């Protein structure tokens, strides 16, 4: 029997008076590589932030291995949306990656040679070790994304929550990141990824959560990633070309991609 790594129960979140998540349930089994998909504004980022305790829910709760996040922090690593920080900030790649150790370091202690080594290791894994001393503003979008991944890797966590790690990266970087995600899964880690490219969901992921304010579906890709649930998630804005067979639906995904979702 598998244990549940991330569980969300009846979660409702609102900004001011606008509900963004409505009674959302989700279960990610330990070892799952899960995509979270939904149109812009569906609440994907908010769901991740609620799991991390960064936004306060109106109702419901999120549990990591059965306990609240505040007790399980050391098990979780977070990769925020790349656009959430100012990349002109005066700091180096190595410095940013070492921030991943700040949680374990605790108050007042300065990062030292152990943290440095861990950061260089992580940079090596994402193929960025040659850029360690660069100022972060001098990187391409894909390189910045890999720096964020390295920062999460040095946290040495069991559960990884990633917000759009494929956004604005080139094809080579995308393949490198996918390899990394699959390596994490093979080590038994649980990885939740906010993802936009519906076409690649069956190829990259084994679990999927479909979200549009409410939970539309959540489960193994082969079972729940259907035309019906896609239609329910993206509304009538998707024109499906044909049929039920999974292979044929691929065309539907492609159409979904080419349509503006908002």
């Amino acid at each position, binding site marked *: 029997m598998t244990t549940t790594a991330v569980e969300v129960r009846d979660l409702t979140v609102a900004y*001011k008076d606008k509900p963004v998540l409505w009674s959302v349930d989700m279960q990610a089994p330990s070892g799952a590589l899960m995509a979270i998909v939904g149109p812009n504004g569906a609440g994907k980022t908010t769901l991740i*932030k609620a799991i*991390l*305790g*960064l936004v306060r829910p109106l109702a419901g709760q999120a549990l990591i291995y059965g306990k609240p996040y*505040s007790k399980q*922090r050391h098990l*979780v690593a*977070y990769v*925020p949306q790349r656009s*959430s*920080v*100012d990349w002109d*900030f*005066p*700091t*180096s790649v190595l410095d*940013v990656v070492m*921030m991943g150790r*700040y*949680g374990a*370091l605790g*108050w*007042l*202690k*300065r*990062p030292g040679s152990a943290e440095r080594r861990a950061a260089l290791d992580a940079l090596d894994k994402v193929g960025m070790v040659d850029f360690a001393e660069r*100022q972060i*503003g001098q990187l391409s979008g894909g390189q910045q994304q890999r720096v964020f991944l390295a*920062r999460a890797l040095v946290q040495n966590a069991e559960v990884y929550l990633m917000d759009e790690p494929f956004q604005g990266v080139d094809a080579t970087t995308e393949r490198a990141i996918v390899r990394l995600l699959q390596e994490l899964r093979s080590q038994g880690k649980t990885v939740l990824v906010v993802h936009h490219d519906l076409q690649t969901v069956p190829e990259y992921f084994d679990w999927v959560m479909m979200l549009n304010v409410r939970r539309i579906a959540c489960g193994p890709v082969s079972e729940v990633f259907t035309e019906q649930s896609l239609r329910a998630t993206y509304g009538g804005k998707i024109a499906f070309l044909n049929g039920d067979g999974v292979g044929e639906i691929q065309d539907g995904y492609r159409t979904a991609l080419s349509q503006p979702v908002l």
Partner: protein
Amino acid sequence: MDIGQLFHNLFFDYTLRTVALGAALLGVVSGALGAFAVLRRQSLLGDAISHAALPGIVIAFLLTRSREPVVFLLGALAAGWAATLSIAAITRTTRIKDDSALGLVLSIFFGFGLMLLTFAQKLSDARQAGLDKFLFGQAATLLQSDVVAMAAVGALALGTTLLFWKEFKLLTFDADYAASLGYPVRTLDVLLTTLLVVAIVIGLQTVGVVLMSAMLVAPAAAARQWTNRLETMVGLSGLFGALAGVSGALISSAMEKTPTGPVIVLCISALVLVSLLFAPARGIVWRWLRNLRNRRRVRTAHLRP
């Protein structure tokens, strides 16, 4: 007065030495903490806090009738804090965006302060207390005891910044990530903002409420041009602030009846201008020259078969 005489006085004249030390202190503290404010996009907050200090100063005087700068500065501290809290309360409870909330608080506090000042100026002992000096600052009013107090408070503020360096850096770069690691970002935010208020209050007597925010923003803007490291940026920013403070205090002391604030701000503005134009990697002049050279190289490569 010639330059040699000025430097002689700097070391041996009590007033000038005090003034220069005070200006240097204010420059270091506001420069260093201003760097964090600029990186956190809080330049406007600094402006609101410093303007909001005025009613605090006048009320402190009206309540105590004391002429001690320490009393004024405690009033400024309280008002600066009240302004910060009001801005937070407005953005949290209403639909007003934070830049509008800042503008609102700034004008209400400052307008109220000016009104109180006009009223207080009618009292005879208030004119002697020199309340109006707080508008544009008058370094000549600094006493040695004021400078000692400034040094103690400034050292405390800078010491706290060094102590929580790692936490403040993380908070400034990526607050959500800091929270995900378990750091109490609300508390750290309050602490860093309090240090900013302290930095502002330290400078008020010398620079005045109207121009104090320039001492937070300008040194940081200049320093950012020269470095890509936070450590260096904060250090340079403090250094630039001190440099501008001392030169401004010297220049204004050499000229009769010149308020210190505007002169110091002119000095730091000159530093900003030089940095924007000539800093190695980011300077406009070098960038322009590089572009020119690249374009020429491309053109010659294009012409060759």
